[in-house]
């Protein structure tokens, strides 16, 4: 019986509440509160599931691509005789970059580091090479020097 009454109230609520100047009944005020919050949570929970699904999908696609690329590049390195076209011979570029470990694939970070090194080489006339780029030890924060930590803290606190 109670379930029937609740269903009846919800059906009435689905028709909408008049916005006129009259106080709301108990059912109306609790109905809007619970149904409203429920709909918001359901809508955003659905988005959590969908975005999570997309994330998993794209992660697996990226992992497969990396897996394909990794053995291909390993096979190319030891080959002494070039079968096809020469795979970009090492030029005396101001800042050639060689990623040492597969974990340092972040191209943006490498590009930034290379750019800074290139600027340095232009400034003092020496040629520098970036031989490897590795993530700092720990969780990324503990490996920073006190100066770096303070700089980052100031940046976060003043920029945002």
């Amino acid at each position, binding site marked *: 019986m109670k379930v029937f009454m609740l269903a009846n109230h919800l059906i009435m*609520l689905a028709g*909408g*509440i*008049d*916005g*006129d*100047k*009259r*106080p*709301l009944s108990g059912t*109306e*005020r*609790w109905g*809007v*509160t*619970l*149904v*409203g*919050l429920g*709909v*918001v*949570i*359901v*809508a*955003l*929970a*659905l*988005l*959590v599931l*969908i*975005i*999570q699904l*997309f*994330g998993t999908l*794209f*992660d697996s696609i*990226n992992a497969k691509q990396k897996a394909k690329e990794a053995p291909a590049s390993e096979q190319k390195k030891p080959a002494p005789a070039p079968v096809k076209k020469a795979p970009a011979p090492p030029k005396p570029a101001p800042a050639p970059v060689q990623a040492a470990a597969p974990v340092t694939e*972040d191209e943006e970070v490498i590009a930034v580091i290379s750019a800074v090194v290139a600027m340095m080489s232009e400034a003092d006339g020496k040629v520098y090479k970036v031989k490897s780029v590795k993530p700092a030890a720990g*969780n*990324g*924060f*503990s490996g920073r020097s006190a100066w770096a*930590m303070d700089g*980052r*803290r100031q940046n*976060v*606190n003043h920029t*945002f």
Partner: protein
Amino acid sequence: MLQILQDILGGLWETSGLCGLAADPWKLLMMFVSFGFMYLAIVKGFEPLLLLPISFGMFLSNLPAVLPEDMIFHAEYWNQPQSVDWLWMVLHDGGLLDKLYLGVKLQIYPCLIFLGIGTMTDFGPLIANPKSFLLGAAAQGGIFFTFLAASYLGMSAAECGSIAIIGGADGPTSIYVSSKLLDGADSNLNTGTIALAAYTYMALVPVIQPPIMRALTTKEERAIKMPQLRTPSKTEKIIFPIVVTLVVALLVPSAASLVGLLMFGNLLKESGVCSRLVDTAQNALMNIVTIFLGVSVGATCTASNVVNWDFVKVLFLGVIAFSLGTACGLLLAKLMNKLSGGTINPLIGSAGVSAVPMAARQSQKVGAETDPTNFLLMHAMGPNVAGVIGSAVAAGVLLSVINY
């Protein structure tokens, strides 16, 4: 001769602003109130980009004028039912601010602001950690529990909804909802007072939120360091706005215009092929709409709308809404922290109220008080931008449930 001179001077006096001021001294009070808000915007830096146009709009609409054709804003036009004749009256007889206010009444400005916000928002932290959506949803508890509280004060559904949306800490959404719900409603409240309260509390985020954050979390919880977020691919960032628009429009069609424009702006940005449009949307368009929105909304703050108990109730319930939203987000984050085995810092939950990026900044600041090496900002940006979507969905729910 003397009689003619006397008639001329009398006529001048009767049409002068001084005569209008003598007839309605409350206007003088409202002008001083507008000066107070100008002081807060200019000297204290409280949301100056919005509070200054709002306060100047308030000042302009309270300038004394006797003749209707001299008035820059006609508050009486906006309590009438909308029709073609009404629209003609506004366009033909209305002052400048009446015409600008049409953009609010027709819900154009809030949606355009959302377009600009979309071009400036990076949803990357939210895509990297989609669970943040739940924190954005929980923080909307402030809206619905305030609806409940307002209803117990004997307010109508339209008034309850308009006040409750302040809890979403989102100015354009508050204006969007209140302008629809209060349209033609028999109420002392209006969009201007709701917007004024919403933007005032958004400016007071650094004052309202930290005590609640400290009270609801332990020192150990505040010190939790969260693992670095993954970097979402460009494809994910492009698909995200389309998926969100689709899901929200299917579940809550009333929120489609707000969320749709927000996501359209974001798609323009993430696509990387519309740099000119992005530049216009986030700079020129955003600035123009902000000026029009602020000045015209401020104009609705006349003495009859502000000097009454209902405005006091708005202020009281507004701060309750804001505080409840913060508390709901924090409590869910605490629960998620327990369930995840201590990997989520509960402080990021308070950022679930929109107020981008002030709320996320508070998470960072309060976290750094406990451990200066703890960087929560990017983790808090996820719930923060989720709060924008959440408040738009909550607005859609209110508009669906309450007939206006």
